[in-house]
């Protein structure tokens, strides 16, 4: 699909919207259907679409292998970090209410948002990894 200008332009137009939607789904998980996994997969799909249209090498320019690998780990680290912050704040692991952020509800919101972002990051990065590493074998 490297020569088809229509597909290329449409992809370039679509990818940002898909990504915004992905972020929306991650952030919106608390009040509607959605959450880190679903949003993460949507985010990953946007990059996968880009890779399908422009090829692996172009895709790797967008998300380099190094950044991809670091994102894999960072997501889990954010999740674990939120849990450990709760422990440092004097609660149990993942006890968001205890975080010193004003009201307990707000702290709980922020804690959940934090872990959803972590989950989304790992899921998106791993989806891209899975696709690119597998697709590369076809060469």
């Amino acid at each position, binding site marked *: 699909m490297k020569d088809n200008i229509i597909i290329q332009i449409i992809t370039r137009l679509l990818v940002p919207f898909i990504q915004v939607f992905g972020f929306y789904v991650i952030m919106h998980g608390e009040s509607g259907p959605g959450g880190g996994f679903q949003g993460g997969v949507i985010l990953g799909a946007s990059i996968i679409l880009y890779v399908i249209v422009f090829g692996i090498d172009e895709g790797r320019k967008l998300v380099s292998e*190094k950044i991809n*690998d*670091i994102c*894999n*780990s960072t997501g*889990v*680290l954010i999740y*674990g970090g939120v*849990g*450990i912050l*709760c*422990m440092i704040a*004097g*609660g*149990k*692991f*993942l*006890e*968001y*209410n*205890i975080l010193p952020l004003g009201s307990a509800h707000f702290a709980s919101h922020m804690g959940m948002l934090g872990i959803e972002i972590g989950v989304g990051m790992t899921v998106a990065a791993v989806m891209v990894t899975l696709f690119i590493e597998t697709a590369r074998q076809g060469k």
Partner: protein
Amino acid sequence: MSISQHFPVLVIILPLISAVLIPILSRAKKIYGWYISSAATFISFMISLSLLRTVHVKGKISYWMGNWEPPWGIEYVVDYLNGYVLVVISFIIFLITLYSNKSVDKEIPEDKVSSFYTIYMLFVTGLLGMIVTGDIFNLYVFIEISSLAGYALIAAGRKRDALIASYNYLILGTIAATFILLGIGYLYMMTGTLNMADLRERLPALYDTTVIRTAFAFFSVGLSLKIALFPLHIWLPNAYTHAPSVIGALQAATATKVGVYVMIRILFTVFKPEFILEVIPVAKLFVMLSAVAIIMGSLLALGQKDIRRMLAYSSIGQIGYIVLGIALANRLSIMGSLIHVLNHALMKGGLFLVVGAVIYKTGITNIDDYKGLGKKMPFSMAAFTICALSMVGVPLTAGFVSKWYLALGALQAGKWVMVPVILISSLLTAIYFWRVIDAIYFQGHEVSGKIDDAPVGMLVPTFALATCCILFGIVASVPVNITNFAAKMLIGG
């Protein structure tokens, strides 16, 4: 607010965080992967010791994730049983991690070493998580973490057969895990809870429903597949034979033991002992299966040429011993099982580590080629001999203690038939190990060229395991006392 109250979760979080950090940090230097793994497993071992001590002093520890009280939240429980298993497993893992550095450098391509240690630590995380959790669905999640990591680690073997071994393990492992998941679903559907202690309270009223019985059947099949009980063992020999030697040792010494622990949990904590003894008498079936496993494992080990395959079949026999003790379900037999979990982990770990050292130095895996190694690698072979003696069950070695308690348990349960089974199997074990010992010490020097003993980094962990084999044979009171408490807790009396 001391940090020690968080130990039940830290013992899992530390390996996990280290696993996540390895791909980032080892970009700078490859060796960091090993440093981080060793440090994390050492700290986990120390935490486990502290947990066991706390259990001994203060009684059962319960940790509520997110401070949600069970059964609404996930509870982590440490009592005598899993405190003991935790110490055993984390100790063995620590020694194997210490040993791994050189062996991994030789057997894994250089650019994959950091991913290797990441997966290694994830595997460790999965195993430790399975031990500490008190929530049955959380158990499934950790089973899957350790299984997934295990598939990839086995596939890292040098020969292409490793790929097929790993694939078959993946298929059977997934069947097992899905059966366990289905069993969990059945229990949840009938009780509305996922907490193990809560299930124990609510299940007896439902023992005669078909749902609970089917759930039990699926748990049994799934767990038997995971621990490779005799007719379901087909994945194990290939997996152990073709895996990298460190992973062979790790799988043989820890993975099946944790599976056995999970089995004990399901049989005696989630279900009560009455269920397998009286409500549906599957205990008899397990006794028969384990007797067959003990004999067949030893018989099949006799005919093997590859030493790793011989050890793998021997493992199948040893799993039979452990399941036998569980199925007899009295205090002495369960003590025997639990002591054997420790002993077999020490002995098999030690044997696989020696085999790994031989592969590191010479690449030999065939028993016939071991001729004359006794003079070339005297220290490694001495460790091998000690572990082999312990496997046979010679008095004053650890292997004797567990077999003694198993035999006592069999007599107490009125199953005296099992005593000759244990004796015959010991004899067979002596025969198949004699082949190796004979080749090592009493046959000509056919290994040509200059071969010296394994490096110190490999010898120290190997000797630590071999020493423990002797130590726990002479000072048997330590494991005996702890397992006595654990067995009392499980079945009372």
